[in-house]
């Protein structure tokens, strides 16, 4: 099983016109253990998306290193963006097929569609999907490539509470069926507690890790609202600084 080590010494956005240069990340060190579900919690604009883009190799302009196992390399990733980024001219199934090689497409896609309850909608174009369904498609696309790391950038942020809860439960079901290392960005501490094995609290820019907390609630007790809320209260009491990050 592969561990992934992320060491980012600095990430600087160069000056643009009147805006001076911006140090977004400084001395950030993060270890991802295999099949671990990690939630990143930090204030808005602190650089969480920048971090995900660096890991996804969408932003090569940084100082530092990413080590997968023993090799300096970017891990194979599945990215679930804030906006699902589906190709509107391809059906649900075609969107998923696009990221796969031609062989074994059906073997991979059919069970994923079934778990995410989208078998009936597989030939529908994204414009006809609800927001929640679009998110589920983007989750399937990310799992389909069997990534070393799944990056999720506040994927439920614009969903209403019941839909967010439904998609979250489906995501957890899928993740438990097919465990993967997950980096999940969120503002919502409740969501982080419900999902994470470990919560990493990040500072405002320049972003670095403030504290890492393991969530001790057993997986089969994660739908127990009272348990989640009690742990949240306990966290806020023990780490008063966290309040500023939310």
């Amino acid at each position, binding site marked *: 099983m592969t561990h992934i080590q992320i060491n980012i010494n600095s990430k600087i956005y160069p000056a643009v016109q009147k805006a001076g240069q911006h140090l977004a990340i400084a001395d950030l060190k993060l270890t991802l253990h295999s099949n671990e579900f990690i939630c990143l919690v930090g204030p808005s604009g602190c650089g969480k998306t920048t971090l995900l883009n660096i890991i996804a190799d969408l932003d090569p302009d940084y100082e530092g290193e990413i080590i997968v196992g023993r090799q300096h390399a970017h891990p194979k990733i*599945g990215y679930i963006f804030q906006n699902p*980024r589906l190709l509107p001219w391809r059906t649900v199934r075609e969107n998923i097929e696009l*990221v796969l090689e031609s062989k074994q497409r059906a073997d991979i896609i059919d069970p994923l569609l079934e778990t995410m309850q989208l078998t009936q909608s597989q030939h529908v174009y994204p*414009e006809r999907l609800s927001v929640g369904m679009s998110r589920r498609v983007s989750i399937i696309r990310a799992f389909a490539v069997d990534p070393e790391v799944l990056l999720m950038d506040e994927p439920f942020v614009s969903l209403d509470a019941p839909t967010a809860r439904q998609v979250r439960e489906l995501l957890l079901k899928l993740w438990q069926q097919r465990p993967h290392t997950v980096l999940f960005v969120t503002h919502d501490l409740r969501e982080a507690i419900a999902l994470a094995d470990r919560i990493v609290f990040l500072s405002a820019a320049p972003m670095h890790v403030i504290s890492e907390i393991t969530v001790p609630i057993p997986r089969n007790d994660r739908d127990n609202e009272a348990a989640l809320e009690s742990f949240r209260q306990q966290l806020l009491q023990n780490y008063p600084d966290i309040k500023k990050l939310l």
Partner: protein
Amino acid sequence: MAFYLNSNILPAPARVASVFWQSCLSGQLPYHLGVTLLRLVISFSIAMLLGCGLGIVLGRNKKLDAFFDNWLVIFLNVPALVTIILCYVWFGLVESAAIMAVVINKLPNVIVTIREGTRTLDQDLLDMARCYHLSKRKTLVHVIWPQLHPFVMAATRSGLALIWKIILVVELLGRSNGMGYQLHLFFQLFDVAGIMAYTIAFVAVIQLIELAILKPLDRQSRRWRR
């Protein structure tokens, strides 16, 4: 009015129809129309292929775009007649010179349209393609091309209209067949009925291209829209 006047300058519709029919029967009209259509297909295909390729490259590469921008503006504004005459003078009154003249006139137009389209490509979708390691071919065919489709259709429609006009001038100046050559002949003979008969054939072909090729392409590309 044409019906009542029925003069050589403004012939009655029946006379135009008769000339049209006679020209079709004699094989003259189909032959000259066919020759012009062949030139249109060849020059249009070359201009579109080259124009789309160069347009995408310039739209994606700021340095190349900055270098070629002025040249594009110059070629966009050079009168068609100048390029046609220069092609004939430099390369002779041959088929390839005629095709080249048409392509040179159409090419900047396609490049500019596709370049503008490429500039508006959705960076989010390109990032998605990149982080899922889609091949260059897959990205071009499935991510970039569908976004460029409206621009390609605009270049196609405006291009066809432009090429028709230029081809006739090219044929008039330096070829011994084609619609342009025939129209020139009719002009010298003051045969307005002939000019109109050929114009009818011309309009019919344009309508056919629109209905049989462009409209179905439009429908196909919009099938995903609500």
